[in-house]
Structure formats: C-alpha cells, structure tokens
C-alpha cells in the first residue's frame, strides 16, 4: 500500500509539473481531470485496504470522479467556449517565469517541502512518503502565483484541494465523510460562481487590456 501511494503520488507530482509546462488552458484542464481520476483511484485502493469502513470511501471516490473528474472540467470547457471564438487557442500570453524557470522553481519547492516535512512532522507521524502531498500543495500555489490567466489560477486551487484529499487519506485516517462531501459541494459551487466571474474578467481584459490598477492600490 505504501508503494502504491508513492507511485500514485509521484505520478501526480509529474502531472502537476506537466501543468507548469503547458500554457494552453484546455490542456491544463485535461491534466487536472486526469489527476482527479488518479485521486479517485487512490481512494478506491485505500478503501479496499481498510475492510471495515471501505464503503464510504468508495462512495467518496465515485463522487470525486463525478464532480472533479467530469463535471468541473465540463463546466470550465463550457465557460471557455462561451467566451472565446477559438477556445483551443486560449493561452497564457506572457507567462511571468517561462516554462523552464517554473519547472526549476517547482523542483525547488518540492525539495523544500520534503525538507520541511522531514524536520518537523516526520518524527511524530513516522510516514516517510508524507511529503508528497505537501509538495503538491506547494506546486499548486506556484501555479496560482505565477500565472495571470484566471482559469489556470482556478485549476491551481483545485489541484490544492486534491492534494488535501491525498494528505488526509494517506497520512491521517481521512476526514469524516460529511466534511468531504461538503467540501466537494462547496467546490462545485465555487467553480460555477467563478466561471461567471472569470468570464466577465477575461472578457474585460480582451476588450480593454490589462487591469488598470490605480484604484486597487493603497
């Protein structure tokens, strides 16, 4: 079980690194969808390894596949289609750091996360691979910070939530079902609301250029 978690965890890290490589928005959405399926697979395997309380985990895995794997990417794709005439060409025009630089900064963050985990929580928890969800969290926050396109920032936030699911499932014994289900409902609501806000924001940026921020300073 430990090895399966490591393999899935590192696969998620590689997927998030690929997200740093991609600048086209629909590719990032596709990669997020794949990583949600991996999280659901992880939950199913966790459920099979715990014979008693497995059914709730299976239900949670099904919910994850349904909402995070299917519904949220569909909503975001629809938002792209409704705003742009050529949604497959939407991309981050001027990335702040460049692809190679953001891959290297991601690696530095992964290493930093590993060291912080080793020196602080490892003595208490005694699980060596617990640094993987922290690395995912830091990489997702790099996605949010380094990109200006709001769709990709939203994807970064959703990857953070995936990382929390992995953390709670593996390192601790998981959150109660009602909290996880509430979190999924909240995420769904957030994505619906945000797609409207992002649509207006990106539409305004398309027409008027970058945000003139004098009113937002001070």
């Amino acid at each position, binding site marked *: 079980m*430990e*090895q399966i978690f*490591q*393999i899935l965890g*590192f696969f998620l*890290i*590689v997927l998030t*690194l690929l997200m740093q*490589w991609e600048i086209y928005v629909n590719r990032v959405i596709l990669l997020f969808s794949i990583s949600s399926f991996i999280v659901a697979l992880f939950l199913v395997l966790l459920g099979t390894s715990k014979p008693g309380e497995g059914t709730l985990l299976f239900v949670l895995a099904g919910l994850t596949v349904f909402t995070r794997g299917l519904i949220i990417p569909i909503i975001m794709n629809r938002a792209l289609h409704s705003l742009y005439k050529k949604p497959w060409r939407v991309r981050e025009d001027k990335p702040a750091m*460049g*692809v*190679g630089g953001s*891959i*290297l900064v*991601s*690696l530095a963050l*992964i*290493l930093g996360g*590993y060291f912080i985990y080793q020196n602080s929580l490892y003595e208490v928890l005694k699980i*060596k*691979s617990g*640094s*993987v969800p922290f690395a995912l969290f830091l990489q997702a926050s790099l996605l949010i910070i380094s990109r200006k396109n709001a769709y990709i920032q939203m994807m970064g936030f959703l990857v953070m939530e995936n990382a929390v699911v992995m953390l709670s499932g593996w390192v601790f014994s998981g959150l109660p079902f009602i909290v996880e289900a509430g979190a999924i409902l909240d995420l769904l609501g957030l994505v619906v609301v945000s797609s409207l806000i992002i649509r207006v924001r990106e539409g305004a940026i398309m027409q008027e250029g970058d945000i003139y921020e004098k009113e937002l300073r001070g």
Partner: protein
Amino acid sequence: MLYLYSLLEILYVLLLAPLIAGIQNSLEEKFESKRGPSIFQPYYDLWKLFQKESLVPEVSSPLFRRGPYFVLMFYIFLSMILPIITAYPLPFAPAADFVGGGLFFGAAAAIKKFSAIDSRSNYAHLGTSRTASIGALSEPIIVLIFIMLGVLSNTNNPFVINSVLRSSPTWYYSLLHGFVTVAFFLILIIETGQLPVESHTNGEFGMIDQSMPFEYTGRDLAIYKWSAYMKSFLLMSVFLNVFIVPFWVPGEGSGFLQIVLYMCIHLVKLSMLVLLFALINTTVSKFRLYKNFDFIAAAFALAFLASLAYYVSS
C-alpha cells in the same frame, strides 16, 4: 581469450553502427509510404567518401584535419568499457567507470566542437554554439542519471547495475528506475539527434548538430560520420543493456557461440529501439529552438525526482 572478445566488441561496434543508422532511415521512409534507401546505404556512402579527396580551409589549423580521428579514438575506447556484448567486464573495462564513460562522451563532443570552430565557417559556428548551449545543460543530467543508477547497486559499475536490474524485481519496478529510464530516454533523443529536438533536413533554422561538419569533405567526413553512427550505437546499447532490457546478456564463463548469438539478439533489440525512434520521428514535429531548453528542464526534473523518490522510499 578475453582479449579476443574485446577485439570482437570493437569490431562489432565499428562494423554494425552504420547498419543501425541505415535501418532507421529506411524505416522512416517506409512509414511515409516511400520506397526508401536500402539498409546498407550508409556503407555505400562511407565507401564513396573514402575515395574522395579531403579539402581543408586555408585558415584552419592542424586540429581541423585530426579532430575526427580523435573522436573516433574516443568512441573505440568507449566501446571497450561499456557493456555491449557481455555482462561481465572484459579486460579493458576497468579503465573508466560509468561516470567516467559519461565524461568521455563529453570529451568527444568537446573535440568535435573545437575542430568545427577551427574551420571559421559561419554554419560551423552556428552549430557549435547551439550544441554547446544544449550540451552544457544535458551533460550534467547524464552524470546525475548515472550517479542515481549507482545508488541502485552501491557501485558505479555498469556491469553490476546490469546484474542487479536483471536479478531483483524490486529495483527493476521501483520509482527510481522508472524516472531514471524516462529521463535517459529524453537525453537519448537529444544526444542522438532525433525529433523533436533535431530533424534531418537541411534548414538552418533548427540545425543543431548537423551544421558542425559542414566544412569536412572526403576521408575526414567519412570518419566524422562513422563516429556519429558509433555514438548513436553506443548510447542506444547503454540504454538497452543497462536501463530497459538488461536480459539475455551472456554472463561469466559463457562460450564464444553464446556471445555470437547474443550479438544477433542485440541487433534485434536495437532494431526495436530504432523502430520506436522512427515512429516518433514520423509523428511529432520539431520544437522551436528555445523550447529545447524547456525539454532539458523536463529531463532534469525527472532525474531529480528520481533522487527524491529514492529518499522517500528508502
């Protein structure tokens, strides 16, 4: 007897390297529904070049003519120390370990660059600066990959790594091995000049390795091309014998017939790898020049994750 095997190994690499290149060219053309050249075409080309005279630019120094011979010497040396036809070290194998082998590849590349610049031609300068930028970033990754492989077996010896990967499934299926294999595959694409890094057409927008030998003619060009074929052969053999399929390589105390049999099996293995390269070459398109550095960053990320995977799982 073992010295005979060493000689056999050198002759094997020397004589069969152009065949593998010919198979790759022929397969690429056949995938595009053309008839393509025969698989022995590189031999005919080399034979033709040996008949021609060498023209040397007036402004060049003696290094220009002698460079390709040094490079060929390095590759012949490398073919003695890498595990190509046997799984146990032949008499000259302890001359350099795995990291040393990687550094010898780098030394050969350096001599190529010096002799290319020496011709004072614009295309040669173009190719050299591009190769140097990419090489400066990809060669440390090769050293990192080889060191991480050394972690598998606690030594730096490719033969020991081969035997460890053959015999223990935990190491073969571990995350460390997976990451290192994929990273080395990406480096292999860079070093042997396949798409998406370099294409074999003559447009100078993207020529990286191809524009270095533009001033060579005649016998020097033949030696240059032959050593390029040998470099591909050696790197692909290392990839197959140490990383992916370390099986069927004859061990200690095997007879001459077994080694000959393995030489044929090795050709089949190489043909499979060349088939994969031909598939990639006819499918993907070439990166724009600066995207190659992102590609190298991805290879570095995978090699680095290999070290992290080792620490997390140990």
